[in-house]
């Protein structure tokens, strides 16, 4: 809800509701540095503007591509954070199963080894649901402070990209929740790295194996869920699904090297067979197999369908080495030109524009294939994109999505972010953004039109107005305290927030001053609460402009 507290300054009671037409900000040309920061980070800050201007664009990008995950300041900050865990007691037949719990706990699950977290998934002892889901909740809680504070901003942007690309609904099951910290760590570690390596991590990640049911897939019939999404969402993409054009797998056209240009349902069935037995070390007997208690990937040979297969037109012989079927499928997919185009188009869609030119996608796909063995393959593609003339020539048209807007608001204000109650999750969910909890495997959509809706717009306004309120419970920093001491007049106030938001104090918030009924020279009220409220409105008015919402 909005802050509707009565505002009782006499000067404000005389406020005129008449609004001044805001400057035509669309017409104003924007600073290329500002655009770069808004595309490759979660929003410009005074610090990042300074870094970019001192290094220059090329070196700044190089630095962003080489920064490792988890800088020291961020890690220290995450160690100070807590997240509430709360549940009622439950009685069993012979005494209490668990006691009522309500405490603020540090985010320890992010560092607990998987075999320890495995215990959270076992039936005995009985545990409350929030205990079992705790690892996933900690990753979600850490995601916003990471987005706001990580030095490796581009890596963080791409980590979120891969989370949507390889979507896992973290709470789908006990296993997906327990091992979600490992999945998050793998995506971050390889976010700018080699696609085949990343794909291999994903295909063996317990969270993914649980989410898309492959951990239960055995001969026969195999479970097709993972196989289909691997082809349709993770690699070749629906654009290379040839089912409508080719009634039979023999009809699918071939590309250089003899592989099929795309896939049909028969390929899905065969790929599903290739991944039978790719499971999780859950530490118990399931049917004929005993799975080790590792909480990590486990291959169950007795579940594997070992016989001959034909995938994308290539024959696989029977009884190959353990995991060889699945590994070869991943090899074929990771280096397929269809995958290169699909992945590159999605990267451009994330960082630049919804519908990039085919020529740009083709240039990047070529680079993607050229460096398919390189440890920095993805980073090279991004670098080529940023250096491409189309990058500079494309005006901002991508709407910040709810998570990105919220992170940007905190970067604009300079507030330190934690979320002891995890409440930001629900604020974002009301705008359609379910951080790490998006049920369908497609992940959050990435086209601007999907977010340019009435409800998202209402929520964006509410977030801007209230992100720094105590009840929002994401930062302890108050906006009045975040303003420099020399902000003394209303003009100082609007200039400060325009500069924080846009890097340019000149984008006047004259309409705000007019509505409040003051001139730029009028002194700010002394009361901290009033200052806080006015600062929130200045931030809101600055944020509710095309140059802030489009990147």
């Amino acid at each position, binding site marked *: 809800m909005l802050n*509707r507290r009565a505002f009782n300054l006499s000067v404000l009671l005389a*406020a005129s509701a008449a*609004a001044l037409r805001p400057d035509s900000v669309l017409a104003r040309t924007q600073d290329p540095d500002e655009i770069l920061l808004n595309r490759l980070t979660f929003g410009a800050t005074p610090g990042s503007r300074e870094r970019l201007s001192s290094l220059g664009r090329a070196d700044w990008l190089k630095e962003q591509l080489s920064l490792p995950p988890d800088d020291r300041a961020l890690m220290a900050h995450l160690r100070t954070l807590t997240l509430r865990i709360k549940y009622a007691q439950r009685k069993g037949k012979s005494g209490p199963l668990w006691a009522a719990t309500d405490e603020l706990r540090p985010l320890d699950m992010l560092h607990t080894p998987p075999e320890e977290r495995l215990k959270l998934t076992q039936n005995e002892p009985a545990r409350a649901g929030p205990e079992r889901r705790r690892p996933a909740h900690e990753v979600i809680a850490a995601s916003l402070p990471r987005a706001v504070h990580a030095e490796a901003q581009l890596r963080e942007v791409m980590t979120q990209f891969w989370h949507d690309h390889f979507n896992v609904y973290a709470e789908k099951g006990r296993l997906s929740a327990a091992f979600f910290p490992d999945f998050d760590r793998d995506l971050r570690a390889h976010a700018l790295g080699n696609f085949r390596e990343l794909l291999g991590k994903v295909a063996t990640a317990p969270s993914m194996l649980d989410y898309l049911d492959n951990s239960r897939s055995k*001969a026969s019939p195999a479970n097709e869920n993972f196989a289909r999404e691997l082809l349709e969402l993770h690699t070749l993409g629906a654009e290379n*699904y040839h089912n409508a054009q080719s009634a039979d797998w023999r009809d699918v056209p071939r590309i250089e090297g003899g592989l099929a240009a795309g896939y049909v349902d028969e390929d*899905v069935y065969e790929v599903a067979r290739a991944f039978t037995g790719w499971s999780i070390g859950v530490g118990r007997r399931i049917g004929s197999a005993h799975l080790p208690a590792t909480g990590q990937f486990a291959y169950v040979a007795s579940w594997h369908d070992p016989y001959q297969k034909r995938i994308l037109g290539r024959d696989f012989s029977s009884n190959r080495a353990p995991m060889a079927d699945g590994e070869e499928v991943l090899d074929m997919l990771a280096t397929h030109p269809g995958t290169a185009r699909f992945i590159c188009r999605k990267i451009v869609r994330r960082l630049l524009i919804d519908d990039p030119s085919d020529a740009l996608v083709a240039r990047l796909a070529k680079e993607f294939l050229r460096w398919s063995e390189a440890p920095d393959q993805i980073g090279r593609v991004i670098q080529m994109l940023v250096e491409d003339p189309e990058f500079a020539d494309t005006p901002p048209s991508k709407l910040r999505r709810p998570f990105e807007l919220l992170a940007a608001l905190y970067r604009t204000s300079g507030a330190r972010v934690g979320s002891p109650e995890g409440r930001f999750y629900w604020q974002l969910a009301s705008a359609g953004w379910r951080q790490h909890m998006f049920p369908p495997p497609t992940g959050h959509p990435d086209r601007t039109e999907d977010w340019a*809706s009435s*409800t998202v717009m209402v929520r964006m306004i509410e977030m801007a107005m209230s992100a720094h309120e105590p009840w929002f419970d994401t930062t302890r920093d108050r906006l009045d305290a975040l303003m420099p001491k020399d902000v003394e007049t209303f003009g100082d106030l609007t200039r400060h927030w325009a500069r924080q938001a846009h890097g340019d104090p000149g984008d006047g918030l004259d309409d705000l001053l*007019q509505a409040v009924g003051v001139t730029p020279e009028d002194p700010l009220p002394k009361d901290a609460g009033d200052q806080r409220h006015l600062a929130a409105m200045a931030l809101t*008015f600055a944020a509710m402009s095309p140059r802030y919402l489009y990147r």
Partner: protein
Amino acid sequence: MSDPILVVIFLRGGADALNIVSPTADQNYIAARPDMLRVARGGDAQGIRLGDGLADVEFRMHRNARELADLFAAGDLSVIHATGLTEATRSHFDAEAQIERAASGGEAGGWLGRWLEAEAPGGPLPALAVGTAMPESLRGYHPAVAKKLSDLTVATGHWLAPALQARLADGFGDHGALAKTSQELLALSKVLEHRLWMPKQDAFRTYSPSVKYPGRNRLSPALMTVAQSIKEDLGLRVATVDYGGWDTHANQQGTFDRNLRGLSLALMAFWRDLGPRQQDVSVVVMSEFGRRLRSNASGGTDHGRAGAMLVLGPQSKGGRLLGRWPGLHNDALEMGADLAVTTDYRAVLSEIMAGHMGLKDTSRVFPGLDAPAPGLFA
């Protein structure tokens, strides 16, 4: 009678229609699935018999859909079985995109979007997508998207609301993603504020339905928003509601049974809540595809082909099973695996648009459709 209203409930994920409306005596059906994944003729899992069945085949409704069977018996609900896309796809993305666009020749927009664009109905709220995202079917039109009506108001009650609204009205220009959104939102916000805002209480008036909706049910709040929009006379013509969770590849029984129970109870509550306004409303329940006849080795079912569509509303003659039942013999199955599509889903939607919504030329909404109407209104 007011202008007719269409409500589309989409069961996302591919609902297992063979476990909703089922040929319970078919030996192929019985052999293909364990007890927990099919409707039975007797015992604990006994389904509710639906009239005389279809083409001499006995059909029963799953026991968790008792209210749907009641609506069927009352003559309000029809079932059209073996419906779906004529072109085979077993991909969620592809199937949903195709089925919601319903454009064989690559025409722009979704089927509801095309109708709204051509019809251009007046009123402050002609189309509402309940939820936080717009479905493909409404593509090409700018529907309101919200979980509840109060979500469509801008900073109501805030002392700076007029200035903020003015900034939105002027600041986003005539093009760009937010231009149209902000204009329409501000107009709607004004109307809703006038209707629902209680300044003294500093709160929105909450909706009081005339019947109790089932609690702990994902569908209830969405259908309450639709019912409220209808009763507030906001000019609603089309509403879409997503009800997900039907992609049951593993351990299907618990999830599926809960989902179906939720659908059945919430839809019945909505229908009773409408009271006399039932006269204006048709509800279509559909999914992107059905699921495989044979279950897999993890207690679930994989993506299949034909599903079933449900049509609720007094304009059509309910209490009937329509369509052509292809049977479940191996030869009758598509690729030897899936219930074959014998009714183009567009034929069902097209008949509703003509018979209920009064659309004279359906070819604009369903270009290239050349399939007989299943006979909902015959």
